[in-house]
């Protein structure tokens, strides 16, 4: 009985593990091996290069600064919305996660339209104060951290809000009963207990900022970071150096991950979820007014990028030069997207590649999650590592690995020519989204009583029937949620695409960049709006699908 179930496990686990080793481990191993292709030569080149030093340090500085900036916004906002009641709270809560709905490149160009040298806010301030030059330049580390803070504080906000919701209010009461004042309670009880949430979200911000590509690419202004440096080296044909840079970037990410794990090592408790305490109304009239005004300003700041992209999408290309607002408006941008085949192409590309990648994710990640949750076999730990690994590797590194590995047909070494074909991007999207979908399905399956599978088999159901009638229905919420997140990420993907795309399979993000370079702001914005609508459409589809089945 036992051995037969173990053999059965391997029948499914074998192909799944083989596929993931081929797609995840192999390319990254190829990159590391490639960095040593002439001994330590490429590594010496890296250490001798001032540009690479600058890139490494700048990457780390940006990542750490992004963590602190996101904490500075996310933590107070979570406390404000979680602990206090004030006019405007519900509106602020509704828009607080809005930045997460912006595809990465779209957020960046929205900031360009708003705060760039010829942006709306910049020009408005310049006019208002009669300055001869723009009051600031959206350039360099500051600009990148600014954009990161806007898009990434959402992680901190969501984690800390969830922590506050689970916070057992009797702990706070116990502390005050023992004589601790507000500050002592915050310092000794509330903050230590929220540390796991803070640390978890800080890690997410760190990893995202380290791998971030779009902000440095657009706002860098000659500034070097590792991810852009990798693309530079590749474009210049210095593949050996690109391999070293990729290895260093991946190692930085893994080191960051290990550091956070180590800092969080002592925690053995979990917060009991007994429901937090009720929100307190702000009593002082003055503070109430201040809070509401502050909330209104935050709401505007959060909504403005979306509004700006929509506005610019109606601006006639080339008409917006030195004015505060675009002077001429037209439907022409949208009409051209839908009528010109060359402009329509990126949209069908992105949608079909996202669908292929997500479909593959659903099948492979479901099987992997099923094996991880329900089966005990020798390769289980390794499989867990395989599905989590792409999360720890920056997308630029994943993309370069694929470029280095699947650049020729060589059946003996398992290489297939994918570079330059349509299929390289769906493969990249599939790898990037594997951790997301797997963990979503895993958490759904973990809520299922493991004895249900035995019960179904005991009642005479075949393995297939058990899958169809018991396991898949249990996994469904995770499949829907994970599939949605994967599809949303894939349809707007930029970082891996910029390394791997060709003109024929260029996705929407690459076309936005191309239009931006051609100073066709209106067309770029129209693509962005379309991307936001696609994301919205997929979210609604997933929700209605889930409701119909539930």
């Amino acid at each position, binding site marked *: 009985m036992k051995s037969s179930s173990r053999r059965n496990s391997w029948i499914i686990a074998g192909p799944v593990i083989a596929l993931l080793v081929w797609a995840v481990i192999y390319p990254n191993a190829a990159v590391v091996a490639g960095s040593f292709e002439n001994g330590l030569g490429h590594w010496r080149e890296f250490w001798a290069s001032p540009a690479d030093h600058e890139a490494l340090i700048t990457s780390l500085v940006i990542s750490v600064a992004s963590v602190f900036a996101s904490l500075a916004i996310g933590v107070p906002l979570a406390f404000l919305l979680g602990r206090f009641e004030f006019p405007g709270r519900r509106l602020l809560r509704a828009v607080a996660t809005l930045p997460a709905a912006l595809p990465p490149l779209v957020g960046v160009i929205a900031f360009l339209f708003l705060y760039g040298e010829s942006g709306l806010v910049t020009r408005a301030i310049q006019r208002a104060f009669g300055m001869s030059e723009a009051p600031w330049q959206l350039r360099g580390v500051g600009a990148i951290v600014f954009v990161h803070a806007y898009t990434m504080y959402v992680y901190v906000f969501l984690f800390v809000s969830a922590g506050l919701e689970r916070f*057992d209010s009797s702990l706070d009461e*116990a502390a005050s009963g*023992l*004589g*601790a004042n507000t500050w002592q309670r915050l310092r000794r009880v509330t903050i230590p207990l929220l540390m796991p949430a803070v640390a978890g979200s800080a890690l997410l911000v760190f990893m995202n900022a380290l791998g971030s590509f779009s902000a440095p690419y657009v706002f860098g202004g000659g500034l070097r970071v590792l991810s852009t440096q990798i693309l530079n080296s590749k474009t210049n044909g210095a593949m050996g150096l690109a391999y070293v840079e990729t290895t260093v970037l991946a190692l930085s990410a893994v080191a960051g991950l290990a550091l956070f794990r180590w800092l969080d090592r002592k925690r*053995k*408790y979990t917060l009991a979820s007994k429901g937090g305490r009720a929100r307190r109304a702000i009593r002082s009239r003055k503070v109430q007014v201040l809070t509401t005004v502050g909330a209104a300003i935050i709401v505007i700041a959060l909504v403005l990028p979306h509004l700006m992209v929509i506005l610019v999408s109606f601006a006639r290309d080339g008409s917006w030069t030195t004015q505060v607002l675009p002077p001429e408006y037209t439907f022409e941008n949208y009409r051209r997207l839908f009528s010109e085949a060359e402009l329509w192409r990126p949209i069908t590309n992105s949608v079909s590649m996202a669908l292929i990648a997500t479909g593959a994710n659903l099948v492979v990640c479901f099987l992997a999650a099923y094996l991880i949750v329900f089966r005990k076999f020798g390769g289980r730990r390794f499989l867990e590592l395989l599905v989590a690994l792409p999360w720890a590797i920056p997308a630029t590194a994943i993309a370069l690995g694929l470029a280095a590995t699947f650049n020729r047909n060589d059946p003996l070494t398992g290489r297939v020519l994918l570079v330059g074909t349509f299929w390289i991007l769906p493969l990249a999207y599939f790898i990037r989204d594997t951790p997301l979908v797997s963990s979503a399905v895993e958490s759904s399956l973990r809520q299922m009583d493991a004895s249900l599978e035995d019960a179904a088999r005991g009642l005479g159901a075949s393995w297939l029937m058990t899958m169809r009638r018991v396991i898949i229905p249990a996994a469904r919420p995770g499949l829907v949620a994970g599939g949605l997140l994967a599809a949303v990420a894939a349809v707007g993907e930029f970082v891996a695409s910029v390394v791997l795309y060709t003109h024929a399979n260029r996705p929407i993000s690459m076309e936005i960049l191309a239009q931006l370079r051609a100073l066709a702001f209106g067309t770029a914005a129209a693509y962005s709006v379309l991307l936001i609508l696609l994301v919205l459409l997929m979210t609604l589809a997933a929700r209605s699908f889930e409701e119909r089945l539930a």
Partner: protein
Amino acid sequence: MTAAPQARPGGESGALALEGITRRFGDFTAVDNVSFQVGPGELLALVGASGSGKTTTLRIAAGYETPDSGRVTLGGADLTRVPPERRGFGMVFQHYALFPHMSVENNVAFGLEARGVNKVDRLIKARAALANVGLEGAGDRPIQSLSGGEQQRVALARALVIEPKALLLDEPLSNLDPNLRETMRDDLRRMLRRVGVPALFVTHDQEDAFAIADRIALLKRGRVLQCGTPEELYHSPASREVAGFIGRGVVVPAIDKGATAEVTIGGVKRELPVTRAKDAPPKIENAFVVMRPNSIEMSKGAGVFPWRGKVVNRRFAGGVEVYRVELGEGITVDVESQTADVHEGDNVSVAPLKRAFPLVAG
């Protein structure tokens, strides 16, 4: 044993008093004009079913809730608007509320830390307090490694080490298994007694209250039904409701005749000696006597005792059998008996034992 770090018996604190406390949540009145007093060294139990307002009353005493009207005083000083952190009370929470990220001794030392006691002194005191509750040497352990009974002791040590002016305990025994509960009752009573400050504790379990408390305040729908010693509540309940809750009595209609009451069942009249609550009126209209399982005797067959009935249910209650006997006219009593040869459906006869029966108004 080291010197107890707590306040000496009869220490500086005076009596804890709640005067006319009312607290509403929207339309719901959780606490309705509640008043009582707990003297130094006295143990008062707030007893009631869930939703009776006992926990809200405790939270008002602790300062976590502010009453809509009424006052909380200690030794005559008004504390009604003083926040919990400045009351100096010790509180033990129902689920203990131990800080999961701190060791046992840091939990116990927390109140001293909040008072600015230096690290060495507070650890010495915390260890002594742990020794006092029988947990010497457990200071380094993480909270998660403690059993329920140990957690309860840590929570108690944490409340005692700050030398509280009053002690408040929310269902201190409800999370313990039955065996542990028995021994903790004695321990708790001993430790609370030694501290010598007013102690107020909430429980839904009357046996806990009987075993620990000097006095009991019985609450229902936010009101105090009766406040007195366990014996008073048992032998001289103030009302039908008190009699029904305390000691599981059954009430039977009676006619008040002063020192006695006349009870008629199935046409057979009996005159029983009665006791009544201190403040009961000399003559109770619409009176009832309270019959408890141990105040009635029973015999098999119809002819032995005056009142006839039929056994509808029988259960073994450890050492005795408890029979439920239907006497007709809607009266059903429980009878404790050693005899085991009576079965469900048998005809029996019962009689009141020669003792005083509580008399209450309906």
